[in-house]
């Protein structure tokens, strides 16, 4: 077969001539009927022969699967039609009747009918349920080569060597058989005796049209799946297209090209294509609408006899002289590229679309690539360049072409791209921001091109390179059939080479550190320097891969999604019902494109690989988390852990005592092992436990194990070696008790107990030995008595020479008292994590001085602040420094030599806001502005803020060596390039102040760190004083924050003043009581005001100021809040109500509205003269006018001021 870029052979079999083919509608199976009388059942996906059926005699030409039942039908040159069950693998029955070769057999799509065409010039319909012939169609006057049912209507098409194609109407037959209740007696008779059916005047099947046009015999005919079209193939080497209406049928056109007999033809199930095969050894593909040849594939030696299409997926099969090939017409892998959260891909309509992983939304089409390549060839690859928002698309047409296209800013529809750069090349990828590489396989050259499509460099790749891929910034990967080469473009040198064969795709990890090289059956993971990390083999074809953010590779095969860790551990994640191409993994979702180029999201359970990853990374906390939250525990994970050398972790999962015992032994955890051995109590286990314990030197466990096994000998020896005399003697007793003399003897020797030994010898009548023992140990009396008992005298016996008796050595160290000192088995970190988990959570958060229950309420948003009645207009009016934009503006465009103005100067010019002037370094004008806007006079406290803003305004970019860095100015107007509108960035924006600083202030209040709190709130005031905001709404928010800060500073200052007083003197006490009352006046958050009230109430109550206490209690109750606080308030209220009198008369009118002077902390009642601070709005008695505000520490009380400006409309 000529290598055609467009035809993808998926499976080939070798056999004798294949005459018939049928696809299974659901499974990846194909039936092939052979000229050699065999029928083969193949799994074309796995490439395996599932079964062979050999009952026909001679060639088998017709074959068909039933659409739903587990059966198929075949027809052969033995005139027989056989119906088979492929599950039982048997021929169920044979239909006899044809009088010559059977050419084709087909099942009806819904009725229980089989259609057969035969050389006996008849077409027959059989009912396979009652196994009878129900209709015989005659009319052709030569062999009928093919007969097919219409896919939906009651029509049959037949092709015959009589040069005609006939269309038959079988609606009469359907009628007759669809209503069995109304069948007449005659019909029943007729059906019961089909052989006697009248062949003439038969109305069951009538010829509707006779299509004449072929000059020679017609070999094949097919209906179009949806349109009223018919295609036929004949020995006149023509493929003819026919159209029919209800009343007539006519020839539409002829496809010329086959130069030998055309054997078979069909319509493409989904596309406007006709496929045909012929004895000229070609498969040809025709455009249905233009009737022009689209593509043809030639096989060198084998004539083609039959072609079949899969009913659903894009697969075809063709039978030829030496077997069958299953193929696709085109790649179904949609071209796609992922960049961050976006997927760019090309649909079947050749539209470029994007998919947003964040929103899970598809964009409308952005571009139409209709003109790329040829109409029937989908684009092969897509490479995306985020810097230029450009795509590079390749198509295999004409040896490969590429196009460089800029994507439109917004997806507005499938527009034709305007500015397209194109050229020849089999692969093209972006290699840098402004460069792409084009590989031409024909002349083995890689051109590096710039975005104007001009070649800047040419590289000669290693011989035999088949493809190129991005190789990390500035690098390329060359793929050859046997290796992958990493090449640095700039240095023009090969950096690394790795021998991996047949790599087809390269998938980079999200962090660019690893790449997966995919070949048909292997995945090789390499580092970015092309060092192999791991490799794995799959028997099923690998289709695609994508990396998880944690560095786990997920890959898809034809039927599974699997994972592989970097170390090569892999497993199945889920099964697939159809092939998909993974593009991205995000959490529990795997994003992929299916074969129709639709984005799909698959849900997966990442637990298993996350667990394994955590294990590899020794991230025990995460493992624990996973164990706790998922039902992971299974035999597979345990054996995995065991295999990977983590028995101690596996131990944590297992319940089964036997497994636990094994694992415990493996990791030397004797405690668990003992526990399990006790539970199971099997000698074998005790034996193993004893051996293991002995190895540990844990003789107490050994002892127990031996005891459990009743292994007395070993026990005795153990006691001997550990020096446990007491137990040894007990063993001796036991031996005596058992009557086991050997054991007793042994124990006696161990213990050095001579008497017992003699005694025992005597008991077993071994007097000579007893005597000898006694004698040798110098026990003369005993020896005498033994002699006596035997009735012998010393002369009568001869004794061997006796040496010194052997003394049993006495153990010096009482080993038995304790186990061998073994290095304490530390808990593994995992166990620690387990234990730590148990131990944690006891600590209560440290109590704070005020009531802790308030915490959650205190977090309540800043939105609840009460509105200040302040003049809104004051904020925007009074433009002090009027920027005459155009008049003053120095035209920087002028080409005169000399220095221009810095951007900082521009900032000061562009903005009337003090903060911008500070950023520009123009401190004088900034101070001037602040003085006029808010009467600022004391700038010292603002110095940190000034310097902070200034420091954040410039960056330092190193440029030429040995020169100072280039200074650049950081803008808040990032998008802006007009020098009249650029403005500086101001650190600590309002959002930060509200979300961070203000919350810190509240926290200080809650935690009763008042000094700190005052500083925080003052810092907030200073930050706002020098700031900018982006909307009127934010101006309002800033004002609220200023007011809040003021109230808190005032309140905290009052309380701090009170704490500094002593209450020993009556004056001091009075002032203290007053201050504690004033503390309740500032407008704090309710929760905080409750704290103030609580403090005031308790203090007043303690000093018998019941009236005040009562008023505080009432206010608290009115505010509501935590029950505990309210309970106290209620108590105090009850008691105070008995005598609502104040003991100390204080200056606090609980019924009047008043403000507190922020300098003297005394009331300013309504109507009395007061002055306020122009910035914070804090109130003061008149005598403080002209002094520095106590709250802001910056502004002058009562100074004339136009109001703080933070915002210029139109500036943003």
């Amino acid at each position, binding site marked *: 077969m000529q290598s055609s870029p467009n035809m993808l052979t998926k499976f080939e079999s070798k056999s004798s001539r294949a005459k018939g083919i049928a696809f299974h509608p659901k499974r990846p199976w194909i039936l092939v009927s052979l000229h050699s009388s065999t029928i083969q059942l193949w799994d074309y996906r796995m490439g395996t022969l599932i079964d062979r059926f050999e009952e026909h005699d001679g060639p088998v030409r017709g074959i068909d699967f039933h659409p739903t039942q587990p059966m198929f039908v075949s027809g052969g040159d033995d005139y027989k039609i056989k119906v088979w069950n492929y599950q039982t693998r048997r021929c169920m029955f044979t239909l006899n009747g044809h009088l010559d070769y059977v050419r084709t057999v087909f099942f009806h799509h819904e009725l229980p009918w089989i259609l057969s065409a035969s050389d006996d010039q008849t077409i027959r319909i059989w009912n396979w349920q009652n196994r009878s012939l129900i209709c015989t169609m005659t009319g052709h006057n030569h062999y009928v080569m093919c007969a097919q049912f219409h896919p939906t209507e009651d029509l049959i098409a037949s092709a015959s060597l009589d040069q005609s194609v006939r269309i038959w109407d079988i609606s009469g037959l359907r009628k007759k058989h669809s209503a069995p209740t109304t069948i007449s007696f005659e019909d029943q008779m007729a059906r019961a005796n089909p052989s006697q059916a009248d062949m003439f005047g038969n109305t069951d099947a009538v010829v509707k049209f006779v299509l004449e046009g072929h000059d020679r015999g017609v070999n094949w005919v097919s209906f179009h799946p949806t349109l009223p079209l018919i295609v036929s193939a004949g020995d006149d080497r023509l493929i003819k297209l026919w159209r029919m209406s209800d009343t007539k049928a006519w020839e539409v056109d002829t496809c010329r090209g086959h130069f030998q007999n055309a054997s078979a033809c069909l319509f493409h199930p989904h596309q406007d294509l006709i496929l045909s095969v012929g004895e000229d050894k070609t498969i040809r593909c025709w455009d249905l609408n233009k009737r022009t040849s689209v593509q043809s594939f030639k096989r060198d030696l084998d004539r083609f006899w039959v072609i079949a299409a899969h009913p659903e997926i894009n697969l075809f099969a063709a039978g030829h002289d030496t077997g069958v090939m299953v193929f696709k017409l085109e790649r179904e892998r949609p071209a796609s590229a992922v960049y961050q959260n976006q997927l760019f891909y090309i649909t079947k309509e050749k539209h470029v679309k994007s998919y947003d992983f964040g929103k899970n939304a598809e964009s409308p089409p952005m571009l139409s690539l209709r003109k790329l390549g040829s109409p029937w060839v989908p684009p092969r690859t897509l490479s995306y360049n985020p810097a230029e928002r450009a795509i590079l698309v390749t198509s295999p047409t004409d040896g490969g072409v590429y196009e460089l296209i800029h994507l439109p800013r917004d997806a507005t529809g499938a527009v034709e791209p305007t500015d397209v750069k194109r050229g020849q090349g089999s692969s093209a990828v972006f290699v840098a921001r402004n460069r792409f590489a084009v590989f031409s396989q024909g002349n083995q050259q890689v051109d590096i091109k710039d975005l104007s499509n001009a070649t*800047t460099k040419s590289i000669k790749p290693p011989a035999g390179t088949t493809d190129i891929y991005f190789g990390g910034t500035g690098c390329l990967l060359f793929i050859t059939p046997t290796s992958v080469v990493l090449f640095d473009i700039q240095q023009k040198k090969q950096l690394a080479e790795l021998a991996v064969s047949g790599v087809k795709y390269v998938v980079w990890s999200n962090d660019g550190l690893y790449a997966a090289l995919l070949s048909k059956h292997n995945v090789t993971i390499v580092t970015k320097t092309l060092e192999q990390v791991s490799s794995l083999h799959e028997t099923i074809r690998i289709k695609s891969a994508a990396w998880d953010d944690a560095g786990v590779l997920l890959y898809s095969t034809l039927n599974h999604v699997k994972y592989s860790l970097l170390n090569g551990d892999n497993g199945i994640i889920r099964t697939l019902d159809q092939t998909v191409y993974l593009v991205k993994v995000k959490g529990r979702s795997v994003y992929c494109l299916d074969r129709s180029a639709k984005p799909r999201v698959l849900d997966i359970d990442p637990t298993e690989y996350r667990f394994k990853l955590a294990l590899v990374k020794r991230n025990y906390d995460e493992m624990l988390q996973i164990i706790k939250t998922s039902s992971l525990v299974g035999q597979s994970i345990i054996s995995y852990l065991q295999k990977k050398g983590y028995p101690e972790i596996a131990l944590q999962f297992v319940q089964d005592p036997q497994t636990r015992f094994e694992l415990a032994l493996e990791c030397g955890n004797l405690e668990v092992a003992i526990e399990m051995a006790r539970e199971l109590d099997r000698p074998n286990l005790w034996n193993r436990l004893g051996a293991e314990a002995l190895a540990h030197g844990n003789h107490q466990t050994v002892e127990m194990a031996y005891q459990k096994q009743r292994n007395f000998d070993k026990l005795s020896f153990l006691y001997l070696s550990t020096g446990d005399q007491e137990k040894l003697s007990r063993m001796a007793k036991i031996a005596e008790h058992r009557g086991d003399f050997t054991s007793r003897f042994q124990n006696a020797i161990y213990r050095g107990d001579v008497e017992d030994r003699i005694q025992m010898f005597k008991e077993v009548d071994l007097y000579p030995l007893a005597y000898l023992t006694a004698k040798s140990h110098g026990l003369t009396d005993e020896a005498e008595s033994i002699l006596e008992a035997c009735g012998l005298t010393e002369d009568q016996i001869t004794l061997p020479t006796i040496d010194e008796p052997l003394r049993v050595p006495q153990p010096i160290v009482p080993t038995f008292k304790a186990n061998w000192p073994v290095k304490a088995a530390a808990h593994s970190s995992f166990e620690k994590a387990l234990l730590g988990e148990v131990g944690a959570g006891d600590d209560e958060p440290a109590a704070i001085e005020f009531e802790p229950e308030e915490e959650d309420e205190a977090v309540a948003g800043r939105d609840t602040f009460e509105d200040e009645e302040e003049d809104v207009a004051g904020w925007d009016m009074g433009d002090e420094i009027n920027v005459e934009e155009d008049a003053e503006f120095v035209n920087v465009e002028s080409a005169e030599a000399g220095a221009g103005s810095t951007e900082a100067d521009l900032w000061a010019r562009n903005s009337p806001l003090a903060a911008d002037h500070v950023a520009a370094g123009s401190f004088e004008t900034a101070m001037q502005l602040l003085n006029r806007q808010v009467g600022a006079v004391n700038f010292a406290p603002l110095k940190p803020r000034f310097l902070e803003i*200034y420091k954040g305004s410039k960056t*330092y970019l190193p440029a030429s*060596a040995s020169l100072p860095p280039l*200074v*650049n100015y950081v803008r808040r107007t990032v998008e802006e390039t007009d020098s009249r509108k650029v403005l500086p960035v101001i650190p600590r924006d309002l959002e930060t102040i509200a979300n961070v600083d203000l919350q810190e202030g509240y926290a200080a209040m809650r935690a009763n760190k008042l000094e700190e709190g005052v500083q925080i709130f003052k810092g907030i005031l200073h930050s706002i004083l020098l700031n900018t905001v982006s909307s009127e709404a934010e101006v309002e928010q800033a004002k609220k924050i200023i007011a809040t800060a003021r109230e808190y500073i005032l309140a905290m200052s009052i309380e701090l003043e009170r704490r500094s007083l002593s209450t020993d003197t009556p004056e001091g006490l009075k002032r203290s009581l007053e201050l504690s009352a004033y503390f309740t006046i500032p407008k704090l958050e309710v929760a905080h005001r409750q704290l103030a009230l609580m403090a005031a109430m308790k203090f007043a109550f303690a000093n018998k100021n019941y009236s005040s206490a009562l008023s505080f209690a009432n206010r608290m109750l009115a505010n509501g809040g935590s029950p505990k606080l309210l309970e106290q308030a209620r108590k105090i209220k009850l008691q105070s109500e008995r005598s609502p009198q104040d003991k100390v008369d204080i200056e606090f009118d609980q019924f009047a509205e008043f403000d507190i002077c922020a300098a003297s902390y005394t009331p300013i009642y309504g109507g009395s003269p007061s002055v306020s601070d122009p910035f914070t709005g804090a109130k003061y008695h008149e005598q403080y006018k002209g002094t520095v505000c106590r709250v802001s520490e910056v502004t002058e009380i009562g100074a004339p001021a136009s109001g703080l400006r933070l915002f210029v409309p139109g500036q943003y």
Partner: protein
Amino acid sequence: MDPFSAEGELINIHNAFHQGQYPAVIEFDTSALSPENQLPAGILQLRAQIALGQSDAVLADVAGGADDTPDLAAVKALAQHTTGDIESAYTLAQDLAENYPDNSTVQVLAGTVLQAQGHSEEALALLTKHQGNLEAVALIVQIHLHQNRSDLALKEVQAAKRWAQDSLLVNLAESWVGLRVGGEKYQAAFYVYEELASAPSTAAPLSIVGQAVAELHLGRLPEAEAALSAALEKYPDEAELIANTIVLNVLAGKPTEELEQRLQQTHPSHALLSDIQEKSDLFDTAALKYAPRVSS
């Protein structure tokens, strides 16, 4: 042919120098180079040494040949300048500019010395005599930017792009201008530096700083922080890394004192410190003009 063009054998050492990979430049094996390229390569290595602060060694190196070879004399002038011998550096640079205005090394190095001493006009006058010397172009761009003439800098870059689009220096110079111009150019500059910083063969403090600065200007503080903090661990004494981290921390509302101290210790003359000091003094004097009417 331009010895630094993409086809030349000096391309790698040249690029390494301009990516700030000075140690790589010094270690570069020059023995394989053709004789006419030996001198330019040697000059680059000397310049790399100067950039690493080994000016004294360089002075000793060039002592012999400085009188005969204007290239080495120019190196000497630069070395003198960096060791603080301002006067003689200036005299030598002027002398060279007068006598060898067509020598490209003289153009670049004398131009650098003149510019560094504030004689921008003289520097420009010398540099504009160049004949396709990209380094001179880069220097001109920098001087223009220093003078806040981004319009002229842009022109210079665009002119250079016409004949040397692929060059690293032109790309860098374009990014310098881009970071001044702002808007979409920030992103373009970011891509240039990101590309340099991400490729293992070209990563150096210089490119990481460039990337981080671009991120700062783009307002992408977390990304800038990631880049800078990783780089600071690797190159703890790199002045611009510290300086820009200070800027970052200010913008992110984090403390900067420790870094300022570090900068003070390692590079007491850094522009940031002197600038802050100057502004601090300015603040104090300016604040003196104001006082409350009634002191309390």
